[in-house]
C-alpha cells in the first residue's frame, strides 16, 4: 500500500477528491469545537481564561505528533527511497512549526493572567521551545541545500536524530523542572479534568487533526507540482 502510493499520480487520484471533504469536516469541527468551548463552564479558579486551553492543548499535541510523523516519513524516505515520503516530510514541517509556535504563543497568553508571567522556564515549556528550535533547524537545513534529493536525505537524517533526541531532551529538561501543572488528561484512574471541559477539548483535538490532514494534502500536492515544474524547466533549458 505504502509503496503503491509512492507514485504521485496514484496518490493524487485518492488525495485530490478527499481534500474538499477534509476541508469541510475541519471547518465544521472547528466551528463546533469553538461553540462548545464558549458554552463550556468557566473554571472555578481560572475563570474565562481556561478557554485558551481549547486552542493551546491541541496545538501542543499536534506539534509533537507532526514531529513524530516527520520522523516516520523520513525513515521511509531514507531507507526505502520512497519519493513521496521525502516530499511529505518537507510539506508537513512548516505546519508542525506553526502549531508549536501557536502552542507557545497561546501558552504565553494563558500564563499572563494565570501565573502573572508570559514565560516560565519550566519543564514542558522549555521542551516545547526546543521542539520549535528543532523545526526551525529542519526547515533551515532544507532551505540551504539546493539539490532536492540531497536536501531530502540530509533533512531525513536530521529528523531521525532529532526524533531519537527529543525524549532525551524532554527528560533532561524535566530533570531540571519547576511549576507547570501536572498532566491532567492521561493520568491513572481517569481524567482529572471535568467532563464538561473534556468534550470541547476532544472536538478541538479532532478538528486540529483533520485540519492538519487537509493542510498536509494541499502542501504535498503543491510540493509535487513544484517538483514537476522544476523537472520540466530543466528539460526545457537543456533541450
Amino acid at each position, binding site marked *: 500500500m505504502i509503496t503503491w502510493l509512492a507514485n504521485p499520480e496514484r496518490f493524487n487520484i485518492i488525495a485530490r477528491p478527499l481534500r474538499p471533504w477534509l476541508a469541510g469536516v475541519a471547518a465544521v469541527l472547528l466551528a463546533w469545537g469553538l461553540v462548545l468551548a464558549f458554552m463550556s463552564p468557566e473554571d472555578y479558579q481560572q475563570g474565562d481564561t481556561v478557554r485558551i486551553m481549547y486552542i493551546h492543548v491541541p496545538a501542543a499535541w499536534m506539534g509533537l505528533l507532526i514531529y513524530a510523523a516527520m520522523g516516520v516519513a523520513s525513515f521511509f524516505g531514507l531507507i526505502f527511497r520512497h519519493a513521496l515520503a521525502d516530499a511529505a516530510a518537507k510539506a508537513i514541517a512548516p505546519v508542525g512549526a506553526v502549531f508549536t509556535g501557536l502552542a507557545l504563543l497561546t501558552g504565553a497568553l494563558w500564563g499572563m493572567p494565570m501565573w502573572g508571567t508570559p514565560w516560565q522556564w519550566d519543564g514542558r515549556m522549555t521542551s516545547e521551545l526546543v521542539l520549535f*528550535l528543532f523545526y526551525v533547524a529542519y526547515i533551515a537545513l532544507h532551505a*540551504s541545500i539546493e539539490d532536492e534529493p540531497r536536501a531530502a536525505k540530509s533533512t531525513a*537524517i536530521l529528523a531521525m536524530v532529532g526524533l531519537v533526541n527529543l525524549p532525551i531532551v524532554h527528560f533532561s529538561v524535566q530533570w531540571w523542572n519547576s511549576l507547570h501543572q501536572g498532566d491532567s488528561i492521561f493520568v491513572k484512574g481517569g481524567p482529572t479534568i471535568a467532563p464538561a471541559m473534556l468534550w470541547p477539548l476532544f472536538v478541538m483535538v479532532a478538528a486540529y487533526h483533520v485540519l492538519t490532514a487537509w493542510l498536509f494534502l494541499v502542501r504535498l500536492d503543491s510540493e509535487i507540482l513544484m517538483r514537476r515544474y522544476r523537472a520540466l524547466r530543466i528539460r526545457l533549458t537543456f533541450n
Partner: protein
Amino acid sequence: MTRPSPIIALIKRDLGLALTRGGGPLLGIGFYLTLMAMIPLSLGPDQAVLTRIAPGLTWLCLALSSLLSLERLFERDFDDGVFDVLRLGPLPLEAIAGLKCLSQWLGTGLVLSLATPVVMIILGAAPQTALMALLSALLGSLSFAFIGGIGAALSLGTRKGGVLMALLVLPFYVPPVIFGAGLMQAVQTHGSPWQALAFLAAYALFALALAPVAMGAALKSALS
C-alpha cells in the same frame, strides 16, 4: 615491518593537522577564555552573583567553544577530495567520521576540558570542585564533539555552513549542558553529583553510538 593500522594512521594525521594547523587548540582556548572574561565585564564583578552562575556559564562557554572549531571538521577534506581517497581505504565511512570526531576531541575538547576547572574557579567556584569540573567537562566535550560532528556532516556543501551548523547542533547540546551545569550546581551546594554524572556519561555513550551512523549517512549523501 608491519604497516601501521589505518585507524592509528588516520588519528595521527588528523590530530597532527588539528594541533599544528592555524594555531591549533590555542584558537579554541583563546575563544573560551575571552568569552569567560566577557562574563564579569557584562554582569559586574559581584562575587556572590558570579559564584552562583559560574557553573552554568562555564558550560555555556564550553558548548560554544566546542562548536567553534567543528565547522572545519570535514570541510577541508571534503573540498580537496581527501574523503574520496579515504573512502577507497579499508575503513567504512562511519568509522572515518567517528575517528575524525575522536581526533577533534583529542585536539580541542580535551584541551578545553583541562581549561574548564580554571575558568570555573576564576569565575568564583570553590577550588574543591575542580576535579568534578574536569571530569564532567571531559564527558561533556566528548558528546559535543560527536553530536557536533552530525551537524558538521549535514551542513557540508551548504551555502551557509557555520551559522546553519550552530542552529542544527545547539538544540542537541541541551541535555549535556543541563546535566553538566546541574552536576556542578550539586557539587557547589554539597549535594550528590553521581546522578548527574551518570546521565552525562550516558549521553556521551549515546552520542558515541549514534553519531557515527548519522555522520556516515550524511557524508555518503554529500559525497554522492
